[in-house]
């Protein structure tokens, strides 16, 4: 477990990124909180701080969170230089104050990547990830009757590996932690899931080309195989998926039978 203190309460100092709006220059603002319960979650600590700020007549700190159980991927804080804070395999909302020491100075920053512009304070706009998904992160199956779910058998190990990749919560910690701000882990997780499952095969070439193309267009950096993404990923998604993406992209790029765009004679 990740406890760093057994005390019931600690005092902390906070250095938090404040930025009024996307275009203006931001800066760090310092706060201190005394007698913070160590059983409190990190975000609850911020809730408490915000109530205090609101009561002092100032503008509370904007940060994002929603499910607070580590699955929606909304929370997105870099805590003391680490995406989602010091605990491995956890999101910011799964971080507890017992992971900090008394009198510790905690720095809180937003995800840093030019593809994720800061909206305000710690809130960034991560729609670039959505646009990558839009480019091909689907099988293309339409709503309606399909072959029976058991018509295609899928080996258990393949299904498990696909699930490992599909566990991605789209938080963007991989981008935030990558020294190059690369979105390779995010993009590859979806490509790998749909490569491992037969249902994804009909569009696999198009998917690899388009998703990678969109990833580049968004201005994410290049993967240097540093594996920081996997270390920071709250779902511990493996960079093996990146290797799969590289294979898929290469195969698609040199394939002779792939034709971009709509087929001819489609003009019904």
């Amino acid at each position: 477990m990740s406890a760093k203190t057994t005390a019931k309460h600690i005092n902390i100092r906070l250095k938090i990124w404040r930025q009024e709006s996307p275009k203006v220059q931001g800066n760090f603002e310092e706060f201190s909180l005394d007698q913070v319960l160590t059983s409190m979650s990190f975000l609850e600590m911020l809730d408490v701080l915000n109530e205090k700020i609101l009561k002092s007549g100032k503008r509370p700190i904007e940060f994002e969170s929603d499910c607070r159980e580590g699955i929606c991927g909304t929370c997105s804080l870099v805590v003391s230089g680490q995406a989602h804070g010091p605990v491995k395999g956890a999101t910011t909302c799964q971080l507890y104050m017992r992971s900090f020491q008394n009198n510790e100075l905690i720095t809180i920053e937003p995800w840093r990547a030019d593809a994720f512009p800061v909206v305000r304070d710690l809130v960034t706009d991560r729609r670039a990830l959505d646009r990558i998904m839009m480019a091909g992160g689907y099988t293309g199956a339409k709503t309606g009757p399909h072959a029976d779910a058991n018509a295609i058998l899928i080996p258990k190990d393949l299904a498990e590996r696909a699930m490992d990749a599909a566990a991605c919560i789209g938080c963007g910690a991989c981008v935030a932690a990558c020294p190059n701000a690369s979105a390779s882990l995010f993009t590859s997780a979806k490509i790998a899931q749909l490569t491992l499952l037969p249902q994804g095969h009909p569009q696999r070439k198009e998917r690899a080309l388009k998703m990678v193309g969109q990833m580049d267009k968004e201005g994410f950096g290049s993967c240097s195989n540093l594996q920081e993404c996997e270390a920071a990923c709250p779902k511990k998604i493996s960079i093996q998926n990146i290797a799969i993406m590289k294979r898929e992209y290469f195969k698609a790029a040199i394939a002779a039978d792939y034709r971009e765009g709509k087929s001819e004679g489609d003009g019904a």
Partner: protein
Amino acid sequence: MIPLKQLFTSTLGRKYLMGASGFALVLFIVIHLLGNLTLYASSGDPINTYAAKLDGLGVGKLILEIGLALTIILHIITAVQVTLSSKGARSVGYDSPKSKGGPTKNTVTSRNMIITGFVLFVFMGIHLWQFRFGPEIEDGYTSMVSGVMVHDLYRVVVETFVQIKWVIFYVGSMFFLGFHFRHGFWSAFQSLGIMNPRWSKPIYFLGLVIAILLTVGFLFMPIYIYTTQGGVH
């Protein structure tokens, strides 16, 4: 089929080029090391014979050299592109970023491939200036091997490595080669998408073994010559 230009200008494509050129360079360096083993002989004949054989390839040698130069240029261009695109992807950095450890391969060496690469580039320039474009037959560096007059490369090498400054420079540079290999070898497999879960750890380990072997293999040579030949001159 997408245009090749698009393929090789994508972030993935650049890494294919970097990985593939990296592999080619690994191959070259391994052969280079094997060739250099001739220096451990008690006379200069083996290395001079080996050099003469290479010279004897004529146009073939030129083609190999041009190919090698192009590979190096490709490796450098893609490296610079990758570095620039990454710097451009995060214009505002963190206050003090910290790795989360675990499976990470984010180390001083892996983070600074561009720097180790640059040092190796400078080293290569000096190395070529000293040996590839160093004193020639015309300068009187000749030797007789099996009755044929050849370029006495051995003498060039010995004259260099009896000087302590060059020994230090070469030994130091070889550490950078090792650092570069440490991340580069494994990384090339990953970049080319030929990594799979079963082989990841063994290949990462193999990268370490090769890095150590190459580094030791190369850096021991100047030391050997300095210690065995130092007193002669």
